[in-house]
């Protein structure tokens, strides 16, 4: 068990007054709140900050902590002064410390803020925690209902409500056809088990589309970028264009523009109503990497004969 310097975590001096501690906590809580933050390890940092504030916000806890602080150094193993007795593992006043560290409960026992409070339902037992996770799926998998194996960590709590470990759980989840990026799927009762007769928590999956090497997603439609030689744009051509499930033959008309979009109905993603969106094919002119003198001469001939000024309205 390592010592935690709560002043250091909040970035305040050990002499800071309550107001400064509160301000520092609020600022860091906003910065690292897992629902708000994009920072790496936001959740762990948020927990650290909450724990630090919990220890320092009341005068008696702070005094108790200040006494011990003389015997510890941040990040170093902590054993306390001679004769000091850790309180970890002894039940407190019916509340729990949630996910606070062993270090915190060794000092304060189970006198944490707990999950309860004004907002909570008072029922028998405590409901298990919900588990949230992202599930990456390939675009191909959204066309039909697919079963996917989902593996996730379920937190385990002891009777006193302390987080003791995680267990790994696997489920086969049916992903409905037509799911969208960011959509949430709730699996009732698949979260952490309830304590003392409380209901199980739920599992929430947030669907994330894995980036596709060829297709981009625009609502129900897909976009593919089709490379063409300049003369293919000029003269027209027929090209086999990949779709999510196979290939289609696309006729590019003569005189097509670079960047122009053509659309193929029914080759996009599946909507909730079961219909397929469009596949947009965006034409992209690609120049040959090198050209010898013969080719150069041909371009020169074209330049003279075409007498075209693309910057007429520039």
């Amino acid at each position, binding site marked *: 068990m390592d010592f935690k310097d709560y002043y250091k975590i909040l970035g305040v001096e050990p002499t800071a007054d309550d107001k400064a501690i509160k301000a520092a906590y*609020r600022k860091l*809580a*906003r910065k690292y*709140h897992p*629902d*708000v933050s994009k920072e790496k390890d936001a959740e762990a940092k*948020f927990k650290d900050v*909450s724990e630090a504030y919990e220890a320092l916000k009341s005068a008696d806890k702070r005094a108790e902590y200040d006494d011990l602080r003389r015997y510890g150094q941040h990040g170093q193993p902590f054993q306390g002064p001679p004769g000091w007795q850790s309180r970890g593992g002894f039940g407190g006043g019916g509340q729990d410390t949630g996910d606070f560290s062993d270090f915190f409960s060794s000092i304060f026992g189970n006198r944490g803020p707990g*999950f309860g*409070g*004004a*907002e*909570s*339902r*008072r029922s028998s037992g405590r*409901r298990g925690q*919900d588990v949230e996770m992202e599930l990456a799926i390939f675009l191909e998998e959204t066309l039909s209902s697919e079963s996917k194996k989902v593996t996730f960590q379920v937190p385990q709590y002891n009777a006193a409500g302390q987080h003791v470990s995680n267990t790994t759980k696997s489920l086969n989840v049916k992903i*409905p*056809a*037509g799911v969208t*990026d*960011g959509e*949430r799927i*709730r699996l*009732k009762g698949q979260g952490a088990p309830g304590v003392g007769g409380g*209901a199980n928590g*739920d599992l*929430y999956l947030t669907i994330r589309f894995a*980036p596709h090497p060829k297709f*981009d*997603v*625009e609502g129900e439609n897909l*976009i593919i*970028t089709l490379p063409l030689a300049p003369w293919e744009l000029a003269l027209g051509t027929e090209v086999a264009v990949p779709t999510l499930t196979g290939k289609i033959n696309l006729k590019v008309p003569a005189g097509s523009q670079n*960047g122009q979009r053509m659309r193929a109905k029914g080759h996009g993603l599946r909507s*909730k*109503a*079961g219909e397929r969106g469009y596949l947009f094919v965006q034409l*992209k002119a690609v120049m040959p990497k090198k050209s010898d003198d013969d080719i150069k001469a041909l371009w020169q001939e074209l330049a003279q004969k075409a007498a075209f000024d693309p910057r007429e309205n520039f």
Partner: protein
Amino acid sequence: MSSPLIVQLDLAEFCEATDLSDVYVIEIVEHGILEPQGGTPKDWRFTDYELTLAKRAAKLRRDLELEWEGVALALNLLEEVQQLRAENRMLRQRLGRLVVE
């Protein structure tokens, strides 16, 4: 193809799934953060999506010591940020296919 399954919850089920009291949920609705169908609390029907929203609202309010107005604003902005990030991600991916290195 069958129509997608839409899960609806009444107030009691909603409270159980979010572990929030009914008084608290009513407060969230009064601030326009949740918009259940139905006129009175006993007729209210919530969607799955609103479960996440309610839990997130309760957490933001508690963790950041916000007023409900602040929670509502934060949720709106977070939603917008998320949409913008998704759009940005998609446009960058598009751009990557058009720009020549």
